[in-house]
């Protein structure tokens, strides 16, 4: 959980360990607390929040770290999901094991990323955005129509009855009793997703601070200067693209197994834009911010459910369907964030300083750390 707390706390080992312990207990207890407080549906929402955290962190590598705007991210998500769905469902009567297919699906998504990235990454940022958007649409059109003459994707109906995740012969969708505690399907998925999310967070942090991560930041800030410093910009950008696509494919496989059903409707452009919103709203390039953005935006539509009854109470009728309100609010949020807080809700200290160099708080912090360094 590096980066979630102020640096100063880490200097004291005991506080760090205590905080870590509290956080761990909290994360383990969370689904039970949520179920008790809000009901079983919210545990499922929690699962989706984890899934979106993974996806948003994947997109963050492309958009936040390397500064490449990818508007077709959902294509890789779709590739991962359909790869698993086709090979582990009655569609072709194939039931290959989840743990084999998941990394393979991520690999295939990575391959697609390279295939798309190789010719297009020479382009300037906004062209790249459009090309990725077009690619996302192409993938969706194919998913929608590849039911004839050979039925591969089952067209708009989608693929149903996809095999659930199996852990040691036990299907995760079925409830199980462990240490006297009843663990239901959504709970079990929560722990699986939590584990994988932690892995993804770890990978993202390591990547950010690696040589490659620094190269990405350099390209993001100034591509020409980065090239002059000896960075092979095309390859490094391609790596960011492929890495993001891999995470997307991973998320897709998990989604297919968790949901048990995939259809092209889950992979529209709006989905790409929603994931982008998570990254932008949270704070591009800042891992805790992106996690916050993903969790917030997964919860928001669910919270909007209460808008309907609220309207009923205030003006006597449901004037605007809450479901319709969701995308509208996303759009408004995108515009407002870009206008008033381009660094996001929880930006990285470096980014925030770049965008607001006259913020007295940060200037003070900077001076403090300089003072530390001098000592």
């Amino acid at each position: 959980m590096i980066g979630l707390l102020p640096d100063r706390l880490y200097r004291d080992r005991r506080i760090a360990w205590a905080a870590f312990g509290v956080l761990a207990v909290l994360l383990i207890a969370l689904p039970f607390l949520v179920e008790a407080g809000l009901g079983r549906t919210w545990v499922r929402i929690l699962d989706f929040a984890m899934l979106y955290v993974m996806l948003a962190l994947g997109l963050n590598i492309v958009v936040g770290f390397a500064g490449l705007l990818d508007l077709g991210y959902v294509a890789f998500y779709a590739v991962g999901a359909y790869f698993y769905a086709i090979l582990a469902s009655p569609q072709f009567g194939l039931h290959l094991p989840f743990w084999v297919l998941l990394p393979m699906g991520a690999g295939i998504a990575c391959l697609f990323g390279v295939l798309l990235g190789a010719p297009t990454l020479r382009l300037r940022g906004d062209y790249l955005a459009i090309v990725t958007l077009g690619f996302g649409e192409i993938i969706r059109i194919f998913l929608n129509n590849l039911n004839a003459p050979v039925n591969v994707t089952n067209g708009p109906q989608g693929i149903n009855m996809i095999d659930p995740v199996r852990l040691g012969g036990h299907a995760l969708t079925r409830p199980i009793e462990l240490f006297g505690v009843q663990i239901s399907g959504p709970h079990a998925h929560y722990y699986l997703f939590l584990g994988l999310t932690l892995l993804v967070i770890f990978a993202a942090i390591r990547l950010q601070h690696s040589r490659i991560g620094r190269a990405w930041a350099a390209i993001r800030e100034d591509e020409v200067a980065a090239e002059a410093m000896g960075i092979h910009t095309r390859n490094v950008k391609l790596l960011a693209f492929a890495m993001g696509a891999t995470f997307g494919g991973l998320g897709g496989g998990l989604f297919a197994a968790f949901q048990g059903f995939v259809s092209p409707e889950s992979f529209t452009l709006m989905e790409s834009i929603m994931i982008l919103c998570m990254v932008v709203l949270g704070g591009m390039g800042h891992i805790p911010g992106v996690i916050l953005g993903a969790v917030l935006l997964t919860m928001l539509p669910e919270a909007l459910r209460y808008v309907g009854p609220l309207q009923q109470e205030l003006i006597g009728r449901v004037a605007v369907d809450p479901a319709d309100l969701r995308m509208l609010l996303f759009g408004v949020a995108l515009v407002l964030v870009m206008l008033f807080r381009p660094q996001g809700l929880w930006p990285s200290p470096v980014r925030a300083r770049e965008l607001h160099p006259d913020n007295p708080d940060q200037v003070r912090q900077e001076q403090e750390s300089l003072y530390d360094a001098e000592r």
Partner: protein
Amino acid sequence: MDVLLQQLINGLILGSLYALVALGYTMVYGILELINFAHGEIVMVGAMVSVSVLVALTAAGVPVALALPLALAAAVVVCVVTGVLVERVAYRPLRNAPRLAPLITAIGVSIVLQNLAMIFWGRQYLSFPPVIEVQVYAVLGATVSNIQILILVVAALTMGGLLLLVNRTRLGRAMRATAQNREVAGLMGVDVNRVIAATFIVGSALAAVAGLLIASYYGIAHYNMGFILGLKAFSAAVLGGIGNIPGALLGGLLLGVIESLGAGYIGDLTGGFLGSHYQDIFAFLILILVLTFRPSGLLGERVADRA
């Protein structure tokens, strides 16, 4: 009936519609280097407004010869107001921000417009009232309807007017100067903000015309018609060379022809593997191919990679 000729005619009609929309993209891009994502939605607003007004007027017994221009005028007014508002609120404050910022607000605006339209007009399709009696003429073994001819004529007149505006008037000269170099144009006494606003006004008016024509072409208007249309028109603009007005015309017409020929022959070409419902992928394939092999487009001289 001659299938090839028929597809060519259909392609030209469709292409002239794409070209009208593409002009809006290309004008804004030429001046601001911004992909005005919301342009497709402005076309949608134009279509929705013109259809609603037309339905209301014909129901009130207003003759068609009066109702059509009134509907167009209403659409132009609403689109221009929307376009200027969008520029003012979402683009102008970010004119000197990093490139991705206005692009993201443009996406946001596009979502907002789409959802507002959905809340306002509902999810159902609005159908274009049958105000013009369809007549079909035979031309060399193919058929053309009077509506198609009308679309072609209106589109051609509009584009001709635009070319005159850009090449022959003071405002047009100011636009071209601003497109070449905004700072220097400002130093030469061009009011850059006014020129940019004027560009959005002209682009949105074109979008309104396009919206009416597209609604009459397909016979329907729908709140999410703008997005894919906008993408295709953008592809057309890129194909012709973005920022280049004749390029947008050429790109639009070419894209229309390619799409309609492609949709007509894709089944034969792939041995029946891919059918005509893949029509929509042509625009994107062209986009990717053009950007990969000739990013400056057919008529563009600029190098795309200006970072």
